[in-house]
């Protein structure tokens, strides 16, 4: 009895630890005062200020553009790459997948400075293009990792049957393979989009000429001190990521249920 009670207390404490900072942030985004020391009533003025702040709006614009572009491009390259890699022989497959894992396993900061060095070497001015290329680079591995399991489930004979019946490989790809692995592709695209919106370290090192994203803006504002606008911005970003995560989660659970082996 006592141990059950202790377990409950422990669980509650851990979840308070996890959520208290987020709740405080959201609550204070509605506080009608600049300081966090006191509560001066409910207001939406920080949200209005937020949308009037040119620096933040510009960062929001770049964040979305880059997230959409890198999600689209990395999904296309990643899906084709996954199909290609899946059909390789054992050795090349292993090598390709291990290299694919490098950006996932490497610390962000190492990926960031190595890309920075590359752009320097190729004389690419740091800015929009370098940030976009970097985002595509770290998104593709995750697209591949979401598409590959779908390919493993795919019945190999379907595509072969299509080709035996006279379909060109390209036609079989378009009419048979792609529709079958579509759920994996969509999950990969959502994942790429979320990762891109969320990224700070790699963007921070590989941007310039006034191009920033929301994370970089939060970082530079936080270094200068705390501003209520950031609280409002954080609450909105939290909500966005939460919704995206719930969609991804729902997709995977539905998928597991369909296969009938929910763990």
């Amino acid at each position: 009895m006592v141990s059950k009670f202790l377990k409950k207390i422990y669980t509650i404490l851990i979840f308070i630890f996890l959520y208290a900072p987020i709740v405080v942030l959201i609550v204070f985004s509605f506080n009608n005062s600049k300081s966090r020391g006191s509560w001066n009533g409910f207001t939406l003025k920080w949200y209005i200020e937020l949308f009037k702040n040119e620096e933040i709006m510009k960062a929001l614009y770049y964040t979305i553009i880059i997230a959409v572009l890198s999600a689209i491009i990395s999904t296309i390259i990643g899906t084709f790459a996954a199909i290609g890699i899946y059909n390789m022989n054992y050795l090349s497959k292993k090598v390709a997948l291990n290299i694919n894992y490098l950006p996932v396993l490497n610390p962000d900061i190492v990926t960031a400075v190595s890309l920075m060095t590359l752009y320097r070497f190729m004389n690419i001015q740091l800015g929009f293009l370098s940030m976009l290329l970097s985002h595509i680079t770290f998104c593709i591995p995750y697209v591949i990792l979401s598409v590959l399991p779908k390919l493993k489930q795919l019945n190999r004979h379907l595509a072969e049957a299509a080709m035996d019946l006279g379909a060109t490989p390209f036609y079989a790809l378009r009419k048979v393979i792609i529709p079958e692995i579509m759920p994996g592709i969509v999950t990969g695209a959502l994942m790429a989009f979320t990762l891109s919106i969320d990224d700070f370290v790699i963007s921070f090192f590989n941007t310039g000429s006034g191009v920033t994203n929301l994370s970089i803006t939060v970082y530079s504002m936080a270094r200068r001190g705390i501003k209520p606008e950031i609280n409002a911005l954080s609450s909105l970003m939290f909500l966005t990521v939460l919704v995206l995560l719930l969609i991804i989660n729902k997709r995977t659970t539905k998928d597991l249920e369909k296969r009938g082996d929910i763990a």
Partner: protein
Amino acid sequence: MKQLKWLSYPYIFWMILFIIVPLILVFIFSFTTGDIRLNGDFQFSIENFQRFFDPLYLKVLGKSVNLALKSTIICLLLGYPMAMIISRENIKKRNVMILLFVVPMWMNFLLRTYAWMTLLGKNGVLNFLIKKLGFTPLNFIYNDNAVLLGMVYNFLPFMVLPIYSVLIKMDRSLIEAAEDLGANKVKVFLKIIFPLSLPGVVSGFTMVFMPALSTFVISRLLGGGQYMLIGNLIEQQFLWTGDWHFGSAISIIMMAFILIGMAITSKFDKEKEGGGLW
């Protein structure tokens, strides 16, 4: 379907250009000196690595490894019981609890760290409460403990999830057998549960240790402007001092530490059943 192999060629090219070549460049940079502004005028040298053995930098490395280890151990001590509690719940409750654990992890980690700034700051929420209770405000932020707290907060889910995924797969009958044979709870834990969950502990350990060692944001925001960890050192070399050669050497040293860590942990994880996140 072998005809479809060529579909991966664009990405093979991409991988070579954006994954392999950059890492090789960092490697070359770390073993050369020269002025970054004069492209191509590099000489081979191990000066950058020798420079790192200055006590000043060794201290930074020591502090980073120390903090990363401490935060990993705290995460283990806090996370293991949590993973165990969750794994004993029924499936519905279990999935909700795990989802609740994952949600903060997907929130931008910059914002999570920033949230602690608002809690710990000089005029922050904690000091407000302390003043309300009639005590003198304390100095919570801009010290080692604040950085440590930030690390534990950010990386705790990375410890809980792999341990949890091993625990739910564990064969319950082994525990029951031990109990039937007269082992008490402590003995069951030490002789059965913990050894069997080792793969999860090991992957949790790497997943916390790696980002904790390489962070520069947590230390900057919660440790203050002068706070130096190895990540901050790399940032400083690349963005402010402009000594990319030294910065690359530090990156290589950091990667070496992480590789050593992974090699040690993979020794423990022979069966490869450790639940990763992916």
